[in-house]
């Protein structure tokens, strides 16, 4: 699984949307879509203890990414189903498209761990993995998972997404928020604007970045500076770190996984294009919180 990458990728997607889509896709929907796959399953992956007894998945990697289990949450089928439901209930093109993009980003990023994701569900229950780092969630809990992730190429993945984001710093600016983010979600921001001052709304928009950056620093600092474990240090090798078993659910070649991920991404982009339709010819100007 990925950690701060899931926060950074939302801004990276937003910053690199084609011009004809900018201002028409809800950023909030991208964030929600990016959280949904793990929101459905994560609490049971790590589990919890009550009265000395552990409640949770016996084999977290199978429950999280497999079938039967919650692996379907990281798939094209689930993304389309959820987007379809949102469209059915809201008729919001911006939210439907945003959810699709967010869920797709999450599912594709997660092919990098050794378990991978069931991208082609419901057509196939095969997991597709590139195996860049070891999937490390165990009944042992979050700490070991964090130490493994931030000792491997997982850390590098977070850093890459951070660099991609920081290459377009305007995406975090106040002006970008006013001109692009607010018009795409005018109702939500207007509703919030009646209750909170603008500086708080801007902080809401930047909060995902804040959380991604601080959690990356905090967990890396804890694992390597505050509480280093000499037997569990850095290991920037493929499917590392080697001090933890890399669970797998498939023997498919990484190249097949990459090809399927590209096809998945193409399907999502085509779907988003269909949902949004052609760009409106007469631009009436951005909506505002005062509308």
């Amino acid at each position, binding site marked *: 699984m990925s950690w701060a990458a899931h926060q950074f990728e939302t801004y990276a997607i937003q910053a690199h949307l084609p011009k004809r889509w900018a201002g028409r896709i809800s950023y909030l929907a991208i964030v929600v879509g990016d*959280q949904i796959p793990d929101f459905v399953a994560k609490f049971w992956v790590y589990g919890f203890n009550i009265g000395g007894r552990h409640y949770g998945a016996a084999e977290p990697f199978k429950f999280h990414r497999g079938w039967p289990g919650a692996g379907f949450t990281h798939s094209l089928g689930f993304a389309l189903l959820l987007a379809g439901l949102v469209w059915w209930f809201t008729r919001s093109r911006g939210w439907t498209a945003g959810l699709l993009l967010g869920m797709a980003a999450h599912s594709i990023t997660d092919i990098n761990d050794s378990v991978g994701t069931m991208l082609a569900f419901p057509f196939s229950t095969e997991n597709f993995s590139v195996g860049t780092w070891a999937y490390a969630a165990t009944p042992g809990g*979050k*700490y070991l998972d964090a130490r493994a992730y931030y000792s491997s190429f997982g850390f590098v993945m977070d850093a890459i997404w951070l660099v991609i984001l920081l290459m377009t710093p305007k995406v975090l600016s*106040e*002006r970008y928020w*006013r*001109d692009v983010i*607010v018009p795409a979600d005018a109702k939500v921001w207007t509703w919030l*604007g009646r209750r*909170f*001052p*603008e*500086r*708080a709304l*801007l*902080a*809401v928009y*930047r*909060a*995902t970045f*804040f*959380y991604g*950056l*601080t*959690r990356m*620093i*905090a*967990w890396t*600092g*804890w694992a390597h500076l*505050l509480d280093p474990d000499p037997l569990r240090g850095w290991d920037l090798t493929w499917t590392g770190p080697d001090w933890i078993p890399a669970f797998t659910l498939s023997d498919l070649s990484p190249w097949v996984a990459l090809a399927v991920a590209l096809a998945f991404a193409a399907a999502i982009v085509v779907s988003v294009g269909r949902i949004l339709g052609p760009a409106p010819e007469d631009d009436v*100007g*951005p*909506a*505002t*919180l*005062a509308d």
Partner: protein
Amino acid sequence: MTSGAEDTAPLPGLGEPTGRPGDPAWYTRRFELVLYVLAGATYIGFGVFHKWLLNWVVGPIWLVTWIWAVPIVVDRLRRPSTGASP
């Protein structure tokens, strides 16, 4: 919040008030930047020792609370002294 011509105007300098509705007159962009940095430093500082804080609910709330509430608190603290002055 407004749009159109005002959106193309340059943002205030770091030492100038933000000019946003709802922000106190003394609230500069530099002060806001310091708040962001302090929010991050305190979240990391507390988070590494109390890891239950490091989740996607507490993290965003932590930032928004700092940015929203600190100016209100500072404003309340400043008010009595400014009110007493002639």
